[in-house]
């Protein structure tokens, strides 16, 4: 088998060196009843050609984003990723390297993590960021638990317009803890309901901006009120590119910023792997309660600058049952892709990209909003907004798919039984005027 170097001669020689007659002699601890007669009932080995064919057939049963006018968002976004990114992450030394526990031979990974942490902190307007979490939703969940530990309070208030998957992931992580999460109604465009729930038992408020419907929120007022009561403000984002044009959470009073980094460097990948971003202020209570890995700067025995994983005593491998989280991995290669893309973009590139996204969305809003019966619900948006249709949005999306348009996400998919005529649509720099025209025509056609 192409990945197994041993020949039968090798195996025999090795068994001899060990001093056993057959490989079965090394499995004698397996209970008799669990020993199998022969092979497990699955296909036997195949060459590259056969495997590639079978999986290619499966892949071709899907419609890829590049094959149709594509306007699907709601937490994952199609952006163009420069060729350099995918080339670099496939280098052996990045792809097949392990966690940098031996820093002397992992400076490549460690320095890129240090750069990543810095970029995330700058982007979110925060002081410090970790080396990434699994994704935005679990980063959000971990932020809620961190706020509870830091404030020693156990009430969390989440705005209903936070991505429902993020709300659910947070509820799951908190389920058997002392933390109780209350979720306000998703419909209102203001934060009044969140503010109304803040008292001195509140550990944190969690607000997404741009929210699930694409609406932008100013966090200044709610931050002022929350801080007066000793509660933390957790800002959530699902579209990292928005921070190239929209005010950063750290500049609006947020204590912790969490979100999804997928838009930068990481493709759609049907939902994963993605890259969770986690950043916070340099409050002395925070750093030791932050979950996840941290790369830190230091010097070696010759005085040379280098990087190591640090503050590891927060983590499971040392603190075990008292760890801040059980997390053991970070997003690794995805965080590398993110930092490479961000380096290629730089300030100029990111701010331009963000503006292009917003302008494309404005043009899309104009085109769709002018269809009779279609209303753009948002007063504000970045690159995603919500339409109120005269018809069931789920049905509309299926009909659009039939004519070869991937036209957004019906809000009812995320809020079962509610918002049935609302359609969430996203536009990015990858959408052309032709795409928009096709979408508008098709939408008009199915209504």
């Amino acid at each position, binding site marked *: 088998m192409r990945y197994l170097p041993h020949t039968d001669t090798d195996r025999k020689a090795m068994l001899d060196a060990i001093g056993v007659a057959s490989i079965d002699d090394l499995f004698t601890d397996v209970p008799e009843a669990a020993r199998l007669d022969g092979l497990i009932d699955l296909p036997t080995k195949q060459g590259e050609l056969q495997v590639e064919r079978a999986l290619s057939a499966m892949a071709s049963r899907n419609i890829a984003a590049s094959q149709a006018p594509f306007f699907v968002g709601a937490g994952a976004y199609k952006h163009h990723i420069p060729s350099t990114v995918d080339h670099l992450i496939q280098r052996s030394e990045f792809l097949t390297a392990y966690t940098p526990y031996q820093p002397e031979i992992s400076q490549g990974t460690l320095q890129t993590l240090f750069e990543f942490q810095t970029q995330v902190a700058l982007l979110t307007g925060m002081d410090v960021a970790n080396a990434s979490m699994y994704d935005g939703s679990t980063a959000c969940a971990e932020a809620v638990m961190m706020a509870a530990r830091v404030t020693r309070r156990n009430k969390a208030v989440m705005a209903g317009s936070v991505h429902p998957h993020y709300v659910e992931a947070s509820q799951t992580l908190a389920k058997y803890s002392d933390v109780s999460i209350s979720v306000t109604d998703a419909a209102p465009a203001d934060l009044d309901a969140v503010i109304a729930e803040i008292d001195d038992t509140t550990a944190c408020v969690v607000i997404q901006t741009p929210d699930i419907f694409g609406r932008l929120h100013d966090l200044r007022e709610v931050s002022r009120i929350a801080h007066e009561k000793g509660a933390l403000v957790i800002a959530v984002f699902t579209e990292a590119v928005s921070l190239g044009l929209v005010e950063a959470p750290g500049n609006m009073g947020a204590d912790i910023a969490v979100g999804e980094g997928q838009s930068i460097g990481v493709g759609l990948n049907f939902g994963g792997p993605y890259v969770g971003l986690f950043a916070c202020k340099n409050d*002395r209570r925070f750093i*030791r309660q932050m979950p996840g890995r941290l790369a830190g700067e230091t010097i070696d025995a010759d005085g040379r600058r280098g990087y190591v994983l640090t503050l*590891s*005593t927060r983590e499971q491998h*040392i*603190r075990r049952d*008292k760890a801040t989280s059980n997390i053991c991995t970070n997003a690794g290669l995805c965080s590398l892709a993110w930092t490479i893309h961000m380096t290629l973009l730089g300030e100029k590139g990111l701010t331009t990209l963000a503006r292009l996204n917003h302008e494309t969305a404005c043009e899309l809003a104009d085109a769709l909003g002018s269809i009779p019966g279609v209303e753009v619900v948002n007063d504000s948006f970045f690159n995603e907004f919500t339409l109120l249709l005269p018809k069931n949005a789920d049905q509309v999306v299926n009909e659009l798919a039939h004519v070869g348009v991937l036209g957004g996400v019906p809000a009812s998919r995320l809020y079962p039984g509610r918002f049935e005529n609302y359609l969430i649509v996203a536009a990015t720099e990858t959408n052309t005027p032709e795409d928009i025209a096709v979408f508008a025509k098709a939408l008009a056609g199915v209504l």
Partner: protein
Amino acid sequence: MTTRYTEDHEWITVDGDIATVGITAYAAGQLGDVVFVELPEVGKSLSKGDEFAVVESVKAASEVYAPVDGEITAINDALEGEPAKVNEDATGEGWFVKIKLADASQLDGLMDEAAYTAHTA
């Protein structure tokens, strides 16, 4: 002033009804470079044997246990910026907390210096 020791390597020095507590130089040596000490809040009540602090080195975190019952009256804030004091002067500037004793007789059950030295031999 009397100083006593626990089997878990805490020292306690008593002056009237206030006791100062820390970890011994032996313990600090075993831990390696101390990078952080997590201290409790002033006013907290402790029972003998309660975990009241955590000492962190780069690769380990060790709990510190209350040698007696009492209430925390002061904590050594200086350790936050200079945890190295625990390594440099474990029984002096590396102190952790001051406790108002609830029951001075509890000290009788602890080791004196000779017994502790034998314990760590």
